[in-house]
């Protein structure tokens, strides 16, 4: 269970996995916090008109954690999920939105132009696995995206937070979305941090717009690509002739810079940084 927990979509169909996870794992407050943060970022990327209550779709709404955030922001929403167990939890939690039991790969059962926006937290990757022999992931992805496209009002956006397995999967998803008529692309927050890195597929229906900038990317905007920079540093340490690579001032400054790029809080560099201390340290 532990090894396949990172890729629950490899274990079993979503409606089964959700039951297993729900009963075997403690729903920690940290998990809830993460879900809430991702929902907040997704809504931010929706770029909805300010101070307006909108009608939104939450795909893969599960127990309604993301939906709760939508309600907090004053929006009305409809949630779709394939798991009866999760929807029952949502009902017990008394969520404000209306819930629909449905399979996103079968298409969104809504009239044209219904929603002002769509969010989806950690649900899209489920479409990339064939749970039944008759399932064709590309076809299901296309069915989902094309029906979603029509159910969105003109100028609306759809934002999907997902954990892509590899670049092929990302390719498949984005190509089917484009085929369905969407424009847009991936927004990556904190690309240099393995822990904080988050992927948001940001799609526009009917209008083309500039893709929002990912968080934590400002410091990476330098003339020299960071990969080339790092290669140089590595060989320099190799040439240090037996001296420890971890103690030099250069190493300390480089480490601090790396942590800044990861979006962490780092003290400013002063004349005292990495200065030789008295032996008692």
């Amino acid at each position, binding site marked *: 269970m532990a090894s396949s927990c990172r890729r629950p979509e490899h274990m079993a169909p979503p409606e089964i996995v959700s039951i297993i996870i729900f009963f075997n794992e403690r729903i920690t407050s940290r998990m809830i916090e993460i879900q809430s943060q991702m929902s907040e970022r997704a809504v931010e990327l929706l770029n909805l008109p300010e101070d307006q209550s909108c009608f939104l779709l939450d795909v893969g709404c599960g127990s309604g954690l993301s939906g709760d955030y939508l309600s907090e922001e004053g929006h009305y929403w409809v949630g779709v999920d394939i798991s009866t167990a999760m929807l029952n939890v949502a*009902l017990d939690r008394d969520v404000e939105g209306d819930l629909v*039991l449905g399979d996103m790969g079968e298409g969104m059962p*809504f009239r044209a132009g219904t929603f002002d926006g769509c969010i989806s937290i950690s649900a899209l990757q489920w479409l990339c696995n064939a749970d039944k022999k008759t399932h064709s992931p590309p076809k299901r992805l296309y069915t989902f995206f094309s029906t979603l496209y029509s159910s969105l009002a003109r100028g609306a956006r759809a934002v999907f937070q997902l954990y892509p397995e590899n670049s092929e999967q990302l390719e498949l998803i984005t190509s089917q979305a484009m085929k369905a008529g969407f424009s847009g692309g991936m927004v990556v927050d904190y690309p240099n941090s393995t822990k904080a890195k988050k992927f948001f597929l940001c799609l526009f229906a009917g209008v083309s717009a500039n893709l929002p900038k990912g968080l934590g990317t400002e410091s990476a905007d330098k003339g020299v690509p960071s990969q080339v920079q790092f290669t140089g540093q590595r060989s320099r340490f190799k040439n240090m002739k037996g001296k420890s690579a971890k103690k030099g001032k250069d190493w300390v400054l480089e480490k601090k810079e790396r942590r800044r790029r990861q979006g962490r809080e780092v003290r400013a560099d002063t004349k005292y940084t990495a200065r030789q201390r008295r032996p008692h340290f």
Partner: protein
Amino acid sequence: MKLLTHNMLTSHVKGVTKGYPLLIKATEVKVSEEEFNPNFVSRMIPKLEWSALVQAADGLGHLQDLPTELIADYEANEDFLRKVHRVLLEVEVLEGCLQCPESGREFPITRGVPNMLLNEEEA
């Protein structure tokens, strides 16, 4: 399932051309109080299929004094907006089913959640 959601739901079974509006066959209906948001109601009205809304509300016995035709200049008419608000957001179908007008296929509703899952042949 609120009537706002019902107004947007269609059958997406393969081959069905007229899967809207779904006929409501309710065995349990609930009416609850919801906060009145005139701006939201006013913005939703142009998206609604008015006749489907009237038909649904009437079928549940909750039409009351909602006009059968959409009136002009509704944005400033608070009285009218309140009536729409009641029908859209305060009437909920808890148990029953939705029937496709073309094929007769039924989608069951349990605890207010319509089951729109399709069979192998329908997808």
